[in-house]
């Protein structure tokens, strides 16, 4: 490392330590850049893959109001994907490259989207539990040390909160509905609760990169801290809703002033992460089909742009 690089690194460290923002034009350590790219890409991929389980119910949404809400939500996810891929572009990688890595299983997305949506109540539960967990994960990232990511997160978190409220509102409606609707909600909660806890990642002891990411201010809390915060936030919401969270060990601990909860099935988690979840193959096959099936369209747009670059584009 040259003297100048030492100086640059020292300045970077100062910026980060003083809660300043690193911008695309600033010098940054290669590890920081790589970690950020991986993290933001994974987040972007999650938005895109996350369109599928919800998209599964758009055509069958049982009221036009819910159809419009769901369609708009999935559209927002595509939009989030766009902001996030843009943020990675400021780090020197483009969307096409990342999409290739996604469909070749070289980059990951949130494992939660490898579970199927089996009833319309799943749409509500995804809003409540999955978006809820995402928000707990993401709110601290609005203060990420990397400027473009932090700014994207501010916008995304605002929309996610809106989605979460819509999901909860759907569940309230179903719980006030027929017996079949209430049963549907409980069943969905039973299936999604544990996977939502897994969204915070491995227990702290098994998460070796956390310390570095925290030092770089691209992660602000440990996995277990966030998981606990989520449980504590969600339990009263479940009570208000009138559903039972499927964990007999879940109870308030007066000493800790927090909820105790049961052991997560880390084997299931690892299976899903490794690609053997219920929907991994399907999600990737769909994404691949859309990407490869759209190649001719992207090629056409590129060819057209080249042809018409020199002259004015004629108005339609």
């Amino acid at each position, binding site marked *: 490392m040259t003297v100048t690089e030492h100086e640059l690194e020292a300045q970077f460290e100062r910026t980060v330590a003083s809660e300043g923002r690193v911008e695309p034009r600033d010098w940054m350590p290669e590890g920081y850049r790589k970690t950020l790219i991986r993290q933001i890409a994974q987040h972007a991929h999650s938005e895109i893959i996350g*369109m599928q389980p919800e998209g599964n119910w758009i055509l069958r949404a049982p009221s036009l*109001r819910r159809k419009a809400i769901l*369609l708009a939500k999935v*559209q927002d996810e595509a939009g989030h994907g766009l902001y996030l891929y843009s943020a990675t572009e400021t780090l020197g990688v483009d969307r096409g490259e990342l999409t290739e890595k996604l469909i070749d299983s070289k980059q990951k997305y949130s494992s939660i989207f490898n579970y199927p949506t089996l009833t319309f109540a799943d749409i509500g539960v995804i809003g409540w539990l999955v978006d809820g967990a995402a928000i707990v994960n993401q709110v601290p990232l609005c203060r990420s040390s990397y400027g473009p990511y932090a700014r994207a997160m501010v916008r995304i978190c605002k929309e996610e909160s809106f989605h979460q409220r819509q999901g909860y509102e759907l569940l309230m409606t179903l719980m006030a509905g027929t017996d079949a609707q209430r049963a549907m909600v409980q069943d969905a909660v039973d299936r999604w609760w544990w996977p939502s806890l897994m969204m915070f990642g491995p227990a702290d002891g098994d998460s070796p990169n956390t310390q570095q990411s925290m030092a770089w201010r691209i992660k602000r809390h440990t996995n277990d801290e966030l998981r606990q915060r989520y449980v504590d936030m969600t339990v009263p919401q479940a009570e208000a809703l009138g559903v039972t969270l499927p964990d007999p060990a879940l109870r308030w601990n007066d000493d800790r002033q927090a909820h105790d909860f049961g052991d997560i099935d880390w084997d299931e988690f690892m299976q899903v992460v490794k690609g053997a979840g219920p929907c991994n193959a399907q999600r990737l096959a769909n994404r691949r089909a859309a990407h490869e099936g*759209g190649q001719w369209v992207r090629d056409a747009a590129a*060819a057209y742009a080249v*042809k018409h670059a020199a002259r004015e584009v004629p108005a*339609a």
Partner: protein
Amino acid sequence: RADLAAYCLMLADDALIAAQRLAGWTAKAPELEEDVALANIALDLLGQARVLLSRAGHLGAAEPFRAGPQDDEDVLTYFRDDRGFRNVTLVETDLGDFGRTIAWILVLSSWRLALMQRLTGSRDPVLAAVAGKAVKELAYHRDYAAQWTLRLGDGTELSHARMQAGLDDVWPFVEELFLPHDVERRLAEAGVAVDPAELRGEVDGVLEQVLPLATLTRPERAAVGLVGGRGGRDGVHTESLGTVLAVMQSLARAHPEATW
């Protein structure tokens, strides 16, 4: 009043079924921007459909289908059979690939925009208001489709072939857009509705402008025939609609007592 209800249903069903078809693109578009844009068009059309269905419901159209506590718009959407839908058959056709989808949006939005522009002058204040809002939305849809028609038509050899094939496939359903139904004719005479026969010139004008620029040719395909003189506006549809509705209505019909 029955005529006005039927007319609201026609305009509503066109938008509703078109939105349902477009929603089938979710998470399948060639680019994220297109995912966003197609969802946008679907949402606009869904919004138009909802206002018009509520209006039709207000005029009594939902009563024959009411089975539970649902709003009029949902009764009309989820508890009507295929034969009760009044949409033109174009909107129910399979969207096929992106080229065909673009051809479909181009034709549909050019036609609906021409219709809605005239409808802003309707004597019925609700229709005039719906049309006023729809005009802005449809102008965007048409522009979006025209831009893509140019890119695909004048893009690569492959995209040119697919865009032309998409246009060819859509073409047999175009003629029906300009066939006036008795209800439309009567209401048009009363200054409430638009006679669709009047729209042909404007739609042709758009296509005459866009297609040559896109290096595409106007298809020569026979129009789809009517069944004993009846088409979509009379509830005589293609075989596609039944399956579209089967999926769309499945959950609502499984729980006729429920609201969501």
